[in-house]
């Protein structure tokens, strides 16, 4: 199909959008920031019969705190997240991750809903959302269901989202006062780079020392989906997070990941770099904890 043969509808309300998703019989795809979708259209991978342009649904662009957590609308751009004082205060790991995406132009265009929907194993905001226990709200004309992020991804580019559904909310857990987070990324260069390996870490510290009461570690770009490093997480609480303890935890990281070799890096390099990034992240976190 030629690009000029693709139709576009720009619904004015979410209800209208869900109605179209439910009723349209041929292939339809949602279009928001376009930073992935338009590239795939140009390359010939995505030529749906219809683009459902949701960029104008301003009601789906919000960041606010509710009783059950911080709600982030799917059309929230990466720039919105970087500039949000609420996220800076209560979800610093997500702010770090959003900052690492592309450069100004891409951060102004790309949305968090798009980053989830594209479901790239290298998506930068996804590991951060993992350690913040994100829940993805999917809506359709038949109702709403909420999926914990760890059950949302099935494989590269694949999620549990049905054709008639769209992401309408992302709910994250606000970090507590004794909680600190960091996002580390290795890419071919600083800006505009797809991650070779990335990792998000969130730690709850107990007291003022280097004892950790629990934490979460999520790696990206080293498996078909983002993954938690559960063995490393267990070790977080079993010893003080001094240089030796951190080195012990990080040395286990290569066993937790299952990378492939591709154009960006070899599997062996990714394994080594998983260890390096985790160690760097933990050291930086502890430095920050010490200096706070």
């Amino acid at each position, binding site marked *: 199909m030629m690009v*000029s043969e693709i139709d*576009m509808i*720009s619904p004015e309300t979410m209800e209208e959008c869900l109605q179209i998703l439910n009723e349209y019989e041929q292939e339809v795809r949602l279009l928001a920031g376009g930073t992935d979708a338009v*590239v795939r259209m140009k390359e010939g991978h995505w030529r749906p019969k219809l683009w459902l*342009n949701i*960029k104008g649904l301003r009601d789906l662009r919000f960041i606010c705190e509710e009783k059950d957590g911080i709600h982030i609308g799917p059309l929230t751009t990466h720039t919105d997240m970087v500039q949000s004082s609420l996220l800076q205060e209560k979800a610093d790991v997500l702010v770090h991750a959003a900052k690492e995406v592309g450069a*100004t*132009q891409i951060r102004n265009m790309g949305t968090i809903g798009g980053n989830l929907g594209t479901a790239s194993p290298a998506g930068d905001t996804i590991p951060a959302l993992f350690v913040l226990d994100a829940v993805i709200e999917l809506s359709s004309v038949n109702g709403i269901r909420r999926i914990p992020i760890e059950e949302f991804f099935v494989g590269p580019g694949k999620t549990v989202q049905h054709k008639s559904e769209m992401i309408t909310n992302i709910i994250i857990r606000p970090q507590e006062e004794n909680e600190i987070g960091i996002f580390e990324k290795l890419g071919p260069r600083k*800006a505009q780079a797809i991650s070779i390996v990335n990792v998000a870490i969130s730690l709850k510290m107990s007291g003022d020392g280097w004892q950790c009461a629990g934490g979460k570690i999520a790696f990206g770009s080293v498996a078909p989906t983002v993954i938690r490093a559960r063995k490393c997480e267990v070790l977080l609480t079993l010893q003080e997070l001094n240089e030796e303890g951190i080195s012990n935890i990080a040395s286990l990281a290569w066993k937790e990941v299952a990378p492939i070799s591709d154009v960006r890096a070899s599997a062996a390099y990714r394994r080594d770099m998983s260890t390096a990034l985790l160690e760097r992240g933990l050291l930086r976190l502890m430095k920050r904890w010490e200096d706070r």
Partner: protein
Amino acid sequence: MATIRFKVNGKEKVVDTHTTKTLLDVLRDDLYLTGSKECCGKGECGSCSVMINDEVVCSCLVLVGQVEGEDIKTVEGVGTSTNMDIIQEAFIKEGATQCGYCTPGFIVAARSFLNKIEKVPTLEEIEEGIAGNICRCTGYTKIVKAIQTAAEERFSRIGAAVTQGNLQGKGD
């Protein structure tokens, strides 16, 4: 085909075109605004940078059906040869252009960057601000210098306006 209405450089435009044509192609082919350039076509080089509602974006990744009613500013709206923006003047002064293909994108990105800052930026901040634009000739040193020069110029003008009790011109 559809009729799409939006503003470009302050003027209302009406275009009959395919909704899936990129904004960049519409600007160049339908509106003859050929300042914005296509280079990579996938959002990596910034040559096609334009502002939509004051936010800099890659116009090669925006479909024209998405900009109905929006306010777009291209390099032609930032300044022209007879009425140059301080950034364009600074690019000439510092010799920040060689082949020139990336220059319009840099001008738009730099203008958007300067619009959002409140003091003369550090070199790191400038580098971060233009990280979405690629130049294969200059090695960036002169581009960064030009943006710094423009920023100093902008804030010294604002400073002068403040001392005179007149902030309306904002210096640029």
